């Protein structure tokens, strides 16, 4: 399990793709939106919480196919399935590795990008907090989606399609949390829901993902 985690982190670093690139994607989405929407600070500040959450979600989404696809292509998954660690551990570990290389850096970078979108000051605290608590759910749900599509050639877009509806509750509560934080409204409800989704995903989805992989290896 540690071996697997370490290897995944090493691979992410080696490929030059792990940390840097999904961060870069987040940065770029945040930059593109003003180009599309126009430069007025007021509008930007109003949509900033939503755009930042959507951006983080997309950055997460794009790196999902890395979770299992490479290991499937080169046969590692076949070999792991016959190895002495349970597939449930494998899926949970890989989701964790994904979070460490994606969700965590995104959370840390989000406040900086908030500046670019003129996010009002009280938003920064809630943005960081909601991302820190919400991105683990994104990684775990994503790992489940990746497990479902692992056998398919270029399942990338299919994966997005499957996973995005599952992401919607996380997005709604996460962005709402920030929006209410900005406006000074009570944030308890969306916040608790967000935490609930994360805990629930972590408790259940490793098993579903492992089952999906077993089916896909046939």
């Amino acid at each position: 399990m540690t071996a697997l985690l370490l290897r995944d982190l090493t691979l992410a670093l080696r490929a030059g793709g792990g940390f840097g690139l999904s961060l870069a994607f987040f940065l770029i989405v945040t930059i593109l939106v003003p180009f599309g929407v126009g430069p007025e600070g007021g509008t930007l500040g109003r949509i900033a919480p939503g755009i930042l959450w959507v951006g983080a979600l997309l950055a997460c989404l794009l790196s999902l196919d890395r979770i299992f696809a490479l290991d499937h292509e080169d046969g590692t998954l076949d070999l792991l399935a016959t190895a002495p660690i349970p597939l449930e551990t494998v899926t949970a570990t890989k989701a964790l590795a994904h979070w460490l290389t994606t969700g965590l850096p995104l959370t840390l970078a989000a406040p900086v990008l908030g500046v670019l979108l003129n996010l009002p000051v009280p938003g920064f605290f809630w943005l960081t907090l909601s991302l820190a608590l919400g991105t683990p759910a994104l990684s775990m749900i994503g790992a489940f989606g990746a497990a479902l599509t692992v056998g398919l050639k270029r399942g990338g877009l299919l994966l997005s399609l499957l996973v995005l509806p599952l992401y919607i509750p996380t997005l709604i509560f996460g962005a709402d949390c920030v929006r209410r934080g900005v406006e000074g409204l009570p944030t308890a409800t969306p916040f608790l829901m967000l935490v609930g989704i994360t805990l629930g995903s972590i408790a259940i989805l490793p098993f579903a993902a492992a089952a999906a992989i077993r089916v896909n290896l046939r």
Partner: protein
Amino acid sequence: MELTVTDLSIARGGLPVLTGVSLRLGPGRALVLRGPNGIGKTTLLRTIAGLQPPLSGSIGLPPEDIAYAGHADGIKPTLSVTENLRFWARIFGTGDIAPALGAMDLVALAERPAQSLSAGQKRRLGLARLLVTGRRFWLLDEPTVSLDVASVALFAGAVRAHLAQGGAALMATHIDLGIAEAEVLDLTAFRAASAAPAPGGFDEAFA
């Protein structure tokens, strides 16, 4: 502890490929699967490894005693030879990778990233992985593809050493492995007959 396969039928893409396959493989034995392309060797090995369910029949052996090596090697191109091997050693909870490196003549290549290996060198690394699994039953699908004569001999030596320690090997191959003591099982006899479907017999369509 033996590997016993009794009256096994297997399918690929929903179609029966082989029927009535029975075999047993005790410690210290090697069995070579032969048969023309497409007969179902790969499918049979994957079924025995527990990667896909059989149509019918039974396989006697807990999957925790099997090491499978298929057409793909599970090698990460950006990791070095040592890192690749050490990863598998840790996954299988075994310790030292030095003997495996030595046995497959990889010592000189140990620090090279796997992507810079030639086809045959990569294959040798794939085979070295078997040695660090510590498993007794090896299921090998065309293990000597791309290997030169010297490497095939190296491989044969590794298999013999494994057998001598009470291991066993089931190998699908088209070429001569130079392991004289291996028995041979030709799968041609077990090819599934494709019977004409009975009219209205929807059951078998879902077999």
